[in-house]
């Protein structure tokens, strides 16, 4: 999943240093992601993973690293299984 997330970041977010040096916990905002970049990333993740982030998840922290994104996607997935 992390590879797929990384791939989506590479395609949708312009980062001055690219994604190759990022580790899963690297802060994407510190790497140069803008607010609008984070919105584009959110929309791309929804399409790729066929999910819709609920309003409570639409915040800055959630999209700040590969690890936090993964945790959110897993939370959504488990909610869907449960529901």
């Amino acid at each position, binding site marked *: 999943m992390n590879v797929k997330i990384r791939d989506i970041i590479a395609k949708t977010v312009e980062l001055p240093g690219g994604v190759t040096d990022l580790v899963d916990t690297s802060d994407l905002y510190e790497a140069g992601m*803008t*607010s*609008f970049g*984070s*919105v584009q990333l*959110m*929309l791309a993740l929804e399409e790729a993973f066929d999910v819709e982030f609920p*309003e409570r998840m*639409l*915040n*800055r*922290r959630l*999209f700040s690293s590969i690890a936090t994104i993964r945790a959110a996607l897993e939370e959504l997935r488990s909610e869907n299984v449960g529901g």
Partner: protein
Amino acid sequence: MLAKTETATFLDELFDQGLLIDTGVDGLYGRSGLFEAIGDGFQALVTRYGGADDPEVVRFPPAMSRSIFEKSGYMKSFPQLAGTVHCFCGNPADHVSLLQTIEQGGDWTEGQKASEIVLTPAACYPLYPTAAKRGTLPAEGRLFDLMSYCFRHEPSKDPARQQFFRMREFVRMGTPDQVTEFRAAWLERGQAMIGELGLPFMVDVANDPFFGRAGKMLAVNQRDQRLKFELLIAIESEENPTACLSFNYHQDHFGKTFGLTTAGDEVAHTACVGFGHERVILALLKHYGTNVKRWPASVRQSLGI
């Protein structure tokens, strides 16, 4: 029948008193001499509070270059508010069919072509590329004093939400420290200024009306980072007071977009304080009533009316 039980709104009262003039379009109003005199008094007060910083005064018409507008990214965030100027660019035959369509009550606007002009959405938008053209900022940065009619397409019966309204702004450009100091100073000054007018207000962290679901996230980001504060005064409702002043830190958004650089060769940061011209006038009229002669002497003195 309804008219008897319906209570007159504040907008009705403003029309009845001739302070605002109905044009048949919600949010598009004429203003009376008295309305303008109150506004002139308020503008002089703003100058009294901000003039000591010796800002450079610049005035633009209420329209801007379409290409600069496109570059600004406004359509990413507020496509629902933007207004573009379209014009007839056809030949005489097109003119004939245009007139026929109007005569028949059809949609004559279909053939209108976008001009190179877009209506100004906020007074500072035309400024950034103009400032960038002058080259690197001096070490002390720059400070501008702007005022313009602005357009936002949001028809409403709330007189404090007009489609064409005036915005006075001070815009600071420089290092992050310079611009955040400016904003912090104005957060204090703005409260002192409205306090001088005796209007009850509150200051709160705020967000812009970003469009759509993606906009929800932009709004949350903006609040999380405390990039926007508003000074709110009750006008149309006590529960939802109206933002009359706003204090905005754009970080490096405009600096990056328009290539503004500091003396230290870093991307410039910008911040602005905006004064809703009509909103402050309306707040005064709401709070003290439409008979200006009965306003407290101290308020009339502050406004020079």
